[in-house]
Each structure stands twice: as C-alpha cells, then as structure tokens.
C-alpha cells in the first residue's frame, strides 16, 4: 500500500511538473527559446491566488481565474518587452535575457510581497479520501491529476484540430513558410506565451495547494525540474512533456521514499543525464532536422 501511495503521489507531483513543462515545451517549439522566467510566472500566479483567497476572502474559483488572467497578461508582456526585440539575436543573448527576467520577477515579488513565507490555503480544502485500507489520498492529489489530464486532452485537441493550433504547428516548423500562408507569426508567438502562462498559473495554484509554503523563489526549483521534464520527454513535444513530467515526479517521490530526501534532486538530474546520453533528443523528441 505504501508503494501504491507513492506511485499516486509521484503521478500527482509529476502532473504539476507536466503542466509547467508544457509552457517550456510549447514556447520552445515555436519561439525556439528557453523561457527561464517561466518558473517565476508560477510564483506570481500563486501570489495572486493567495491574496484573492486568503486576504480578500474570495472564492477559490475567482482566485484561480484572476491568477490565470494576470499570468496570461504577464506572459504576453514579458515576450513583447524582453524577447521580441531579440528575435534575430543569438540564442545566448536570449537565454541571458530570460535568466535576467527570472531574477527580475523574483526580486519584484520580494519588493512587493516581502520574503516572509505566506501560508497558501489549498483551493480544494484539506480533506482526502480513504481509497482502501491503508491508502489515503488527499483531495489536492486527486484534483491535480484530474486537472493535468483535462489540460492534456484540451491541448491535444487544440493543437490538432483548431485553426490556431495548426498555425502554431506551422510556425514551429517553418516561420517563413507560415508567413507565406498568411499566418501572423508574432500573434502566434504571443498566444503561445499566453497559453503557457495561463497553465503556469494553474500549476502555481496546484503546487502551493500541495506544498503551502509560498515565497518569491517558490517557482524556481519546480521550474527547473519541469524544464528537466520537458527535456527528458523531448523538448517541443506535448506528449513528451506529460511523460517527462510524470516520470520525473515518480522518480523524485521514490528517491525520497526509498533512498534519501537529501539527494533526491541529485538522483532526478542524474536520471536526466543518463537519458540524454542514451537518447539526446529526449524520450519522444524528434530528430532536429537542419534547415537551410
């Protein structure tokens, strides 16, 4: 039973990584950049929800929706102000800018909300269900898994079937050809950032519902791990983000349970390194074809 409970907790933690990883992977797929500020958008989302629900006693739904709204706007603004002017720049310049943006958000949060930890109130309450004898699963664990499944289905349908989704896939393959079709590449990139950031808000709320300690650096470590998950699954691939996220969550929980809490993170990254040595494009990564 302890084993099963670890699996469920691993999937739940992995679901959060997967939702964050989607933001990394979608942005990478289209803008070909690693948005290292993505993890900090999660933190902003969590703060917005915290203030709405704990400070102003709004219902959780209002907190979540507002948090998604704020993060969506934030994501679009970050892209327009910081990344868009660098469209033609080297990837190193973009990477450094993204890291700078990450620190900017963390320091901004410290200034606005101080570094005193806030205790986040779970948006689904504290209870749980006794599935069988010896297997108790909290509500937030179950809700997190369910939300992840819903997001995955919705995104798969969106990118597979909708006109905008097809435009996004076209942009990720060939921006010049996409423009010849009449697709506005800038708008498409903005929408990608918007979706990724809205998902980051959801991830932030779920993360802090499970681990209620909210500080300005809250998004940093989950951000890095989700990035790892995205690379693990194959950066640019949506199913890859799901598989990478879930596997990472399970590995982390098992490392904590059976090996050691202190080195669980090291184990997670060691697994990543091994996977990349064996398969450099990640589990589901496509071979990156050279373009002229």
């Amino acid at each position, binding site marked *: 039973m302890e084993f099963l409970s670890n699996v469920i907790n691993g999937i739940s933690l992995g679901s959060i990584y997967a939702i964050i990883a989607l933001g990394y992977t979608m942005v990478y797929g289209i803008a070909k950049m690693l948005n290292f500020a993505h993890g900090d958008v999660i933190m902003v989302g969590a703060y917005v929800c915290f203030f709405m629900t704990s400070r102003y006693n709004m219902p959780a739904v209002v907190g979540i929706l507002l948090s998604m709204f704020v993060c969506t706007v934030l994501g679009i603004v970050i892209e327009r102000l910081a990344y868009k002017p660098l469209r033609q720049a080297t990837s190193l310049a973009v990477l450094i800018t993204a890291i700078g943006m990450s620190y900017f958000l963390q320091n901004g949060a410290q200034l606005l909300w101080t570094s005193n930890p806030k205790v986040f109130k779970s948006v689904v309450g504290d209870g749980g269900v006794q599935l069988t004898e010896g297997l108790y699963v909290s509500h937030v664990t179950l809700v997190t898994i369910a939300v992840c499944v819903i997001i995955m289905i919705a995104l798969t349908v969106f990118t597979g079937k909708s006109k905008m989704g097809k435009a996004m*896939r*076209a942009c990720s393959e060939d921006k010049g050809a996409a*423009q*010849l*079709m*009449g697709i506005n*590449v800038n708008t498409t990139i903005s929408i990608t950032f918007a979706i990724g950031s809205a998902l980051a808000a959801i991830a932030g709320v779920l993360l802090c519902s499970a681990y209620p300690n909210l500080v300005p650096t809250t998004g940093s470590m989950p951000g890095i791990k989700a990035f790892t998950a995205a690379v693990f699954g194959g950066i640019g691939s949506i199913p890859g983000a799901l598989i990478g996220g879930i596997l990472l969550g399970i590995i982390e929980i098992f490392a904590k349970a059976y090996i050691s809490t202190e080195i669980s993170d090291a184990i997670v990254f060691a697994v990543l390194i091994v996977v990349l040595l064996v398969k450099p494009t990640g589990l589901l990564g496509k071979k990156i074809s050279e373009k002229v």
Partner: protein
Amino acid sequence: MAMLEVNNINVFYGSIHAVKDISFKVEKGEIISLIGANGAGKTTILQTVSGLLKSTTGSITFNGQDLMHIPAHKIVGHGLAQVPEGRRVFLQMSVMENLELGAYTQPKNTIDHNLEIVFEHFPRLKERRTQVAGTLSGGEQQMLAMGRAMMSNPTLLMLDEPSMGLAPILVDEIFKIIVELNKAGVTILLVEQNAQMALSIANRGYVLETGKVVMTADAKELLNDDSVRKAYLGA
C-alpha cells in the same frame, strides 16, 4: 499599369549585396521567367516580393498597391502566393493540413471549392491526403507545395525552381500543370535554373547575373540568343 511592378530594389544580407537595383514587370496573364546561375539572386527577389526580406530602396506594387510596407503575412491575402525554393511544406503535418494552411486567409466556404480544383490538377494528393507530408516523395512534395499555394486563390503565383531535384518525366508534368494554371487565368512568375524548360513556356524572360538584370526579351528571342544559349542552355 502592370500587375506586378518591381522598381530598383536592393537587398542585402549583412554586407552581401545580393540584389542590385533590379526592376522588372509582370503583366496580367503572362508567364515570366527569371533565369540565372546559382547565387544570381533569384530566390532573394521572390522572398522580397513576398515580404520575407526587405529592400532598402525602390518600390514593389501589386495591382497598384504598395507591397513593400505591409507585413509579409498580409501579402498572400492580396492574391500573391509563392511556392518557395525547396518546397518547404510542413513535413510533420498531413497533406490535408498543409492544404488547409494554404487556405489560411480564405473564407471557410471557399475551401472545399479550392480543394476540388487542387485535386483536379493533382489527383495524387487526393489519394494521399491523410499521409504526413514528410513521407511524400520529392515530386509529391512539389505538388503539395503548389497545391498549397493554389489554396489561397492566387492571381499571381510565384514558383522558385519547381523542377529542382525531380526526374525529367515529373518536370514535364509540373510544367504542364503550370501552363494549365496559366490558361485558367493565373499569372505566373517562374524562377528556374532549367532555362530551356522555363523559357519554352514563358512569354518573356529576364536573365540575372550576380544580382543584376543583364538581359530581358521575349522568351523566344532569349532561347535563340547566342550568349544565353552559351551560358544557360549548354549550347
């Protein structure tokens, strides 16, 4: 007023001056060929007309409308489509999805009609409409690139080396379709290294050398011109 008028454009890649003060015209209903050796600037010219590259000088007008100062993605909506060099179909998407993207700017109710026309010209694409474009043969990808461009209902179609890498029999087929399209009312701007083929179907031609127009005349005249025959027709 010609359908497409390009006047004194200059295009640079950093310090490389790829297109030097080039002017040309395409009249409605014509087939025009731009011929020239590797690196003459043919692709650069088409990319500039499509707005993907910018000229530092001059003007480009299409049916009297300025194209130089509108964003690239707005150009296809004016009826000007390009089949780019190397096809550049969306390899990870299906044939059908590629065609749908070709009709991105079109109202929904015209898509079925356009599809019918495309499938009439390229029955092969109809058979393979669920296949992923990356698994098509080179010739089929060329057909898809042309079909995709036609989905936007163009009045002027620009083709960049449609014969590249194709077996002679397929080249014949592709050129036959270009002529059919032209007969159906589509004006054609054709860029080719295969000068013989290109000039044989064209009304007029422009000969390019290292970024400059060095000669322009009726296609028949060019085909019989000694210097052209020496340089481009292997005579």
